[in-house]
């Protein structure tokens, strides 16, 4: 309602609408939903299917409790009240009223997200006018197994599976007509490809046609993803504007009119048309702006400065995610951690003052007790129970050895179910728990926590994966799926009986940080970490800070890069906690998370740095083109050099009469199968700068797909309006460049086929500029080897998870940011650098990190010191130690990653991988067969 005060001390008034359900009492059983007489279009499923007035928003909602909406008869007409009668826990409460609270907070993050574009604003999209026109949001729900038809894609008109589907791209985006947005939404090309791939996976024979403008696969690995979609049989990408003409009155097929270069204009019928709708600012953007006092840009998104896109105009208020402008998941994730880093800078002096350590009950020592196993079989909503007979699986579990209790749960992962497990473990004296639900990959940490709450050792848990390994893959074979679920549970129970309690280690963390690379990414990250009171060692291989940004003078957003850079460099040098090494080479890295020792050679001087965390921000290089006469003619530049020459006022370039740019030089080919992401923006930026200085100049940009995503689209449009000519070429028929002598004047002749005119154009250029690819840094392999991190197929650093962990590596304690991850623009680099700082700070804010209990261990008595385990270990975690019983192998539990290779190599079975012991696995193997 109101946001008063300033950084460090905001007073926020909050109004909470009533749910009419007492959250603490609701178990999420959905009995009320079953009895509710009011059917109402399900908002979560885009109104395609029906839900009830009382319902749970969606099956993974947190908290998993129902709420009552305005369609309720009791609320509208004071009738009904059935739900109150059927609720066994008395959770329904119609007396609830809107409540107001005042909270005091030090900072605010705006992460309101976006609102999908609503195609109803324009009649021409035919949405709701023609039955079989759906939006991509509708389609997303149709594809989902929790969607309106349980994952079946059905036509609205006759509920049949469509045989021919068309997607229309750029709906609401890249259009200047009223109601549409001029910018590019940036995500639709790839989400459409995902929908096509999923559709073809569901229905092999469906014909998919995608009407598109440019294919904007500018994200990491997106180019390959596009190729995967494009190469599927029965999938056709058609470059054409498409309009919806009407529908066939009998079949309700949608008639789409489009034009191709070969066939001209034609109309075609499709069983279903998907509108790939773009991204609008949050519907409440006006209110957000007024209430929080933040400025908006002309599109209604948060107005930010490109030198720090996370900061708003109002100090203490930050913005993360797509309210910055259209963004994809990884960017949303790192701007979120970036916002936390900046709040850390602001509130560092108060860090930890409100933290309370989580108290777990005292762990019971049950190591000598006979196994008493409890089995909890999860319905996962309908994910498991629609295929596997859950009650029969529960009954079966009760017959298994050592099982003393078994029950079913709707969602074992829900808060109330976790509490149920804890309570039952105490009540029934369980000492081992089997959760038969989903993959341990996502929820094992949660269930381990549940066990701790019950006073059990967290390693007394085993998860039987009856969802991914059973119900999802055997959806059509219910009987055998149930049998398989029982087999999986039996194996899990057999293993559980062998589980041992394990202790985790608290590992002290050295609070110093090593940042490798002194470009924008490295400096921003170092600066943010140092501001929060940690020592930072910044290692730069060249003699000066700045990296690639030293050659960039402006951005499309209007940032004066050199001024920004010098002020950033000044801050770095002035910060007493940042120690910069120039001309430095890393010669050795030893240690691990919390305790690294890195040896750095600086001008012959050897320095040993002890640090707890490493950030790799080594940047990228520019490809040196071997094509288009580059290097043979001094009138040919790369975009980055051209930008520099323009900024320096090189008259030869500024006064040129004609300039040609060629895009995609050295990438998007077989050798470098990725898009360099930044070049289209660079080309447009250079063109606009040149047009401003010399409006008469003829500028041609030869491109394959213009990838001016997000607000850069406006600049692309502006360039077109200012007379910059954009000519599309295909990789099969690339432009040809010759140096010719025309009447005594040396010019560059560029020949390019023009598909629209159907002829070859000859462009005479004074200057040629090439969009040279961004390529991985020369030293990337060496750095990767030192820090034991991996590279993606294209040679950039491979993050731990492409969407969800975009600044982490699989190796603990090592982080990444900047173009070493993938090419990106300066504002994106700054976002990611803050993101990495945020993750680093999460680690450093604690004094210790916890190392896994599932590590290898040597039974001294059985060890014959043959060294087989030492040769098997890639982490140097095992060494010989002298003991009273002679030389024996010893495992450093902190270095051990728990892969268990040593276990499989030891001839005397002396080394054991805890939690995956021979006994446990052998019991599981034996239990796979019933006699």
């Amino acid at each position, binding site marked *: 309602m109101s946001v008063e005060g300033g950084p460090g001390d905001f007073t926020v008034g909050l109004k909470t609408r009533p749910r009419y359900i007492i959250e603490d009492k609701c178990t999420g059983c959905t009995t009320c939903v079953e009895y509710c007489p009011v059917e109402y279009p399900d908002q979560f499923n885009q109104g395609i299917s029906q839900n009830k007035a009382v319902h749970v928003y969606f099956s993974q909602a947190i908290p998993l409790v129902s709420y009552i909406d305005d369609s309720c008869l009791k609320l509208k007409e004071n009738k009904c009240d059935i739900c109150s009668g059927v609720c066994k826990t008395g959770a329904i409460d119609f007396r609830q009223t809107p409540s107001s609270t005042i909270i005091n907070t030090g900072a605010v993050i705006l992460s309101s997200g976006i609102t999908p574009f609503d195609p109803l604003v324009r009649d021409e999209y035919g949405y709701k006018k023609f039955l079989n026109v759906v939006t991509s949001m509708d389609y997303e729900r149709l594809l989902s197994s929790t969607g309106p038809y349980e994952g079946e894609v059905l036509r609205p008109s006759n509920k049949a599976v469509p045989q021919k589907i068309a997607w229309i791209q750029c709906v609401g985006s890249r259009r200047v007509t009223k109601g549409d947005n001029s910018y590019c939404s940036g995500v639709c090309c790839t989400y459409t490809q995902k929908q096509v791939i999923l559709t073809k*996976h569901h229905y092999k024979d469906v014909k998919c046609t995608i009407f598109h403008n440019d294919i904007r696969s500018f994200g990491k690995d997106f180019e390959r993803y596009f190729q995967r979609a494009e190469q599927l049989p029965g999938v056709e990408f058609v470059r054409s504007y498409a309009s919806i003409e009407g529908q066939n009155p009998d079949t309700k097929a949608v008639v789409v009119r489009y034009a191709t270069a070969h066939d001209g204009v034609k109309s075609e019928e499709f069983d279903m048309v998907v509108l790939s709708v773009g991204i609008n600012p949050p519907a409440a953007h006006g209110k957000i702006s007024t209430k929080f006092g933040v400025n908006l840009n002309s599109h209604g998104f948060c107005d930010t400065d490109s030198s720090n896109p996370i900061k708003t105009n109002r100090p203490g208020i930050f913005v993360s995610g797509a309210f910055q402008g259209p963004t994809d998941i990884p960017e949303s994730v790192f701007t979120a951690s970036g916002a936390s880093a900046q709040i850390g800078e602001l509130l560092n002096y108060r860090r930890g003052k409100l933290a309370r350590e989580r108290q777990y009950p005292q762990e019971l020592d049950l190591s000598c007790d006979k196994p008493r196993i409890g089995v909890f079989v999860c319905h996962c909503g309908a994910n498991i129970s629609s295929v596997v007979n859950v009650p029969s699986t529960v009954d079966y579990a009760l017959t298994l050895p050592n099982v003393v209790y078994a029950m079913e749960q709707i969602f074992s992962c829900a808060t109330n179910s976790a509490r149920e497990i804890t309570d039952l473990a105490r009540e029934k004296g369980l000492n081992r728990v089997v959760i038969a639900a989903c993959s341990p990959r996502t929820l094992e940490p949660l269930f381990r926590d549940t066990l701790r709450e019950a006073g059990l050792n967290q390693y007394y848990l085993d998860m039987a994966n009856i969802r991914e390994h059973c119900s999802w*893959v055997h959806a059509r074979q219910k009987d055998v799926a149930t049998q398989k679920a029982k087999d999986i549970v039996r194996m899990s129970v057999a293993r559980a009986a062998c589980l041992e309690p394990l202790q985790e280690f608290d590992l002290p963390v050295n609070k110093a940080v090593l940042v490798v690379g002194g470009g924008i990414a490295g400096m921003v990250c170092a600066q943010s970490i140092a501001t929060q009171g940690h020592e930072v060692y910044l290692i730069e291989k060249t003699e000066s800070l700045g990296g690639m940004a030293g050659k960039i003078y402006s951005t499309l957003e209007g940032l004066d890069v050199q001024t920004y850079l010098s002020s950033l460099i000044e801050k770095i040098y002035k910060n007493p906690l940042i120690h910069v090494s120039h001309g430095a080479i890393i010669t050795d890295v030893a240690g691990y998370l919390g305790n690294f020792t890195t040896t750095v050679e600086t001008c012959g001087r050897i320095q040993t740095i002890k640090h707890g965390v490493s950030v790799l921000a080594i940047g990228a290089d520019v490809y040196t083109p071997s094509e288009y006469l580059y290097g043979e003619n001094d009138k040919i530049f790369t975009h980055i050099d051209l930008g520099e020459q323009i900024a320096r006022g090189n008259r030869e370039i500024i006064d040129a009469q004609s300039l040609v740019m060629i895009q995609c030089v050295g990438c998007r080919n077989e050798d470098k199968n990725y898009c360099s992401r930044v070049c289209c923006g660079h080309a447009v930026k250079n063109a606009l700068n040149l047009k401003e200085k010399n409006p008469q100049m003829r500028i041609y940009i030869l491109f394959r797909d213009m990838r001016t995503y997000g607000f850069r689209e406006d600049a692309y449009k502006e360039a077109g309006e200012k007379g910059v000519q954009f000519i599309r070429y295909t990789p099969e028929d690339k432009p040809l460049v010759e140096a010719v002598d025309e009447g005594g004047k040396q010019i560059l002749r560029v020949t390019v086929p023009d598909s629209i005119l159907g002829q070859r154009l000859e462009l005479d250029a004074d200057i040629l500029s090439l969009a040279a690819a961004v390529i991985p840094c020369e030293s990337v392999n060496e750095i990767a080897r030192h820090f*034991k991190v*991996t590279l993606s197929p294209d040679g950039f650093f491979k993050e731990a998870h492409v969407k969800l962990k975009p600044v982490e590596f*699989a*190796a603990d304690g090592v982080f990444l940011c900047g173009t070493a991850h993938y090419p990106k623009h300066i504002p994106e680099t700054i976002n990611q650098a803050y993101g990495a700082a945020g993750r680093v700070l999460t680690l450093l804010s604690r004094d210790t990190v916890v190392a896994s209990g599932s590590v290898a261990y040597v039974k001294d008595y059985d060890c014959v010191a*043959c060294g*087989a385990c030492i*040769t*098997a270990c*890639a*982490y140097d975690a095992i060494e010989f130690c002298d003991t009273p019983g002679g030389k024996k192998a010893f495992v450093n539990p902190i270095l051990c*990653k*728990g*892969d*268990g*290779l040593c*276990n*499989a*190599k*030891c*001839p*005397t*079975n002396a080394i054991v*991988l805890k939690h*995956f012991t*021979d006994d446990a*696995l*052998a019991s599981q*193997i*034996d239990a*796979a*067969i019933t006699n």
Partner: protein
Amino acid sequence: MCSGRVDLEFILRAFSTGQDGVFIGGCNLDECNYVTHGNYDALANTHIAKRILEHLGLNPERLRTRFMSGADGNLLAEYTDDFTKKIQELGPLGKSEGMGVKLVKLKLDAARKLVPHLRLVERQKLRVPVKSKDAYDQFFEDPGINRFFDDIFGDKLAISQIMSLLGEQALAAGDIAKKLGLSPSAVSRHMIYSSRHGFVRYDTTSNRYALA
């Protein structure tokens, strides 16, 4: 745990308890998320286990290892379907090999006893220096390596099987040969060797060998 943790004992144990096929799934070669590349160990183990199955007279195609990424659910489904089809064709373990269930189990258990020995041999002689699929395949298909493997493993396996058999009952040399599908001369050789080392004794009244 890594696919390299799947040790020979697990594979042989699974067959011994009555599985008709064993499938090992690992991450793509050369795409280890860590630095271990333990899937190469899984590959080496697969080669060795297949060789053992051959020695036991069992079809090595009952064991299959495939590598795929975490995002290759479709491949896993395809590989699993394909392997299931193959095993259905082969039928129950021992059937296509013309061997009774009991004998199959006896043979596999005899081989399991040799796992510690095999681990030593693997480290000494069967470790491939270069981590590439081709290098591994080439190494394990090399006739020299196979001859070496047969020499050191063949006799040990035969003796281990004989011991297991004699553990059940005393038998004449000819019966041993017949039951295990070994040549009588090889059996005599092993029996002479074993009695010299005091593992077995010859009962002159019944003309049978028994465990010492």
